[in-house]
């Protein structure tokens, strides 16, 4: 469909704009004409703009077409505001749209199917959202990239929203994974506080007045959001290792009926070098106590454990049901489930990771975990030296 750019009719058109616009009469200076050129569209009533943008959002529901929704969010402030109102979180819609969606919890009732591509030469890892419904997807939309840096006492993976730029000074740095010397313990750091821009609902405890409160601005820094520990199981290296993840930013109540998980709404790009490391979320340092009532005690944090595989006598190996999403046996493969306060495993697999090709791995995640957290946890599986093959 072809369109001509607005012509002479534009000046008459202003007569019917419901917002006041400069009158176009004889004797007005030429700057009024420039104002008229600065479009009527920018002053369109929000409900009509919303009607138009909603049509785009509904029709362009999957990638790569979804990029048109992202483009609408980049036109001007008012369009961005409308798009952000219209687009729902992955938890509700099952879709990833704007970059912030990688830091928001996944869908509640089904996993988002992604895959990770490893490049051993450059020591980089790229995360993609699967684009097809096929059991093993063959095309993907880029989400996150990570590069491994070796340090004397640890390894660090810098995580970025840019597929090519994963340097420490990158303006698209959004977090990192750091290992200990032995490769048995890891911490995922988020470059912004997990509650940035979040609206806290009534279900949060105590310190709230009224039904909603915006989280106060918190200092920029690297916030620890996941603590990962690998251990050998009782069979030593002959059996699958045990993985435990403490989700510092997600309460255990998130996986109970009526529970919610923090959902940031604003993404801030930052430069790694300028960020200080923040203390453990939930520790009793002074600044954490001053921040809103969104932090909670360690006992209340969600803990994930890997699902115990079953020994298969006939095949003489440990087995997990990956439902077709993992096709190559590897010690790196795992499924994580929530562990409740009594240490009992829930049934629902919240994060699944496994090998499907030489440098290709699938990653399926769902609520309350975000793509960013899932990616960080999976990266640790690449790194850990425990019971490696």
């Amino acid at each position: 469909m072809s369109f001509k750019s607005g012509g002479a009719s534009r000046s008459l058109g202003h007569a019917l704009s419901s917002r006041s616009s400069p009158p176009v009469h004889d004797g007005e200076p030429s700057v009024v004409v420039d104002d008229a050129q600065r479009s009527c569209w920018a002053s369109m009533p929000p409900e009509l703009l919303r009607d138009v943008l909603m049509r785009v959002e509904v029709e362009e529901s999957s990638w790569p077409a979804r990029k048109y929704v992202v483009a609408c969010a980049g036109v001007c402030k008012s369009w961005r505001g409308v798009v952000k109102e219209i687009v729902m979180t992955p938890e509700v819609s099952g879709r990833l749209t704007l970059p912030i969606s990688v830091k928001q919890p996944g869908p509640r009732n089904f996993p988002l199917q992604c895959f990770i591509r490893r490049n051993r030469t450059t020591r980089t890892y790229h995360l993609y959202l699967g684009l097809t419904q096929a059991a093993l997807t063959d095309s993907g939309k880029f989400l996150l990239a990570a590069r491994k840096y070796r340090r004397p006492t640890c390894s660090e993976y810098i995580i970025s929203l840019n597929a090519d730029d994963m340097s420490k000074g990158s303006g698209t740095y959004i977090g990192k994974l750091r290992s200990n010397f032995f490769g048995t313990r890891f911490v995922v750091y988020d470059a912004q506080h997990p509650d940035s821009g979040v609206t806290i609902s009534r279900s949060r405890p105590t310190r709230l007045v009224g039904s909603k409160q915006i989280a106060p601005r918190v200092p920029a820094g690297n916030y620890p959001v996941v603590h990962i520990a690998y251990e050998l199981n009782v069979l030593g290296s002959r059996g699958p290792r045990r993985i435990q993840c403490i989700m510092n930013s997600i309460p255990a109540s998130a996986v109970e009926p009526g529970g919610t998980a923090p959902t940031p709404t604003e993404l801030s790009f930052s430069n790694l070098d300028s960020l200080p490391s923040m203390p453990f979320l939930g520790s009793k340092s002074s600044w954490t106590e001053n921040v809103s009532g969104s932090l909670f005690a360690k006992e209340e944090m969600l803990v994930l454990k890997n699902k115990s595989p079953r020994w298969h006598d006939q095949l003489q190996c440990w087995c997990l049901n990956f439902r077709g999403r993992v096709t190559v046996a590897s010690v790196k493969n795992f499924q994580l489930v929530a562990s409740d306060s009594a240490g009992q495993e829930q049934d629902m697999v919240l994060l699944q990771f496994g090998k499907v090709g030489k440098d290709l791995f699938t990653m399926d995640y769902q609520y309350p975990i975000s793509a960013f957290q899932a990616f960080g946890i999976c990266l640790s599986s690449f790194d850990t030296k425990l019971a490696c093959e």
Partner: protein
Amino acid sequence: MASEAVAVKIQEGVAVDAVVPAASETSAQRKILLKSVEGEEFLVDELFARGSKMISNMIDDGFTEGAIPLPNVTAPVLSKVVEYWKHHVGKSETDKDAREFDRAFVKDASSSVLFDIIMAANYLDCKPLLDLACQAVADAIRDMNVEQVRGFFGITNDFTPEEEAAVLEENREWSNALTVTGNGQKESNEGGNIVLP
């Protein structure tokens, strides 16, 4: 069985191209006078004029004398709206002529014409026309990137430099980086530690 009703433009008392309606329908086919912001008058069959809920309500409220003023609608736009009513009011949803008219109606329409029609349809409360015009705009946006959308709609970029940098990043890497895996390669068992279904 709509009669051959024609919207008659009345200029200075001279009726142009007036068609006398069939005698059997004169009593049923009342005409309504609509006046655009410039003062131009349009004589429209009541049936078509009721394509606007706003006008329909006014008629029901007893507005029978004189012209209904539409200060928010210009003559060129009102003329287009009346054309739309002629092709749609009293017709079924799936009428082929109506659909063909719609296609031609929005094809080659400039962004400002679409804007005018959206605003008029909103003011007059004519939902099908509003849907048509909004959909045409959504269809236009579909294939455009950010700069093209701004250019087409004449919108100024009012982001701060930081916001603009984030927008650029969103639309460059984030939106455009796709990949294909060349899947289907399977490796031999790696120690048989964990196996698949």
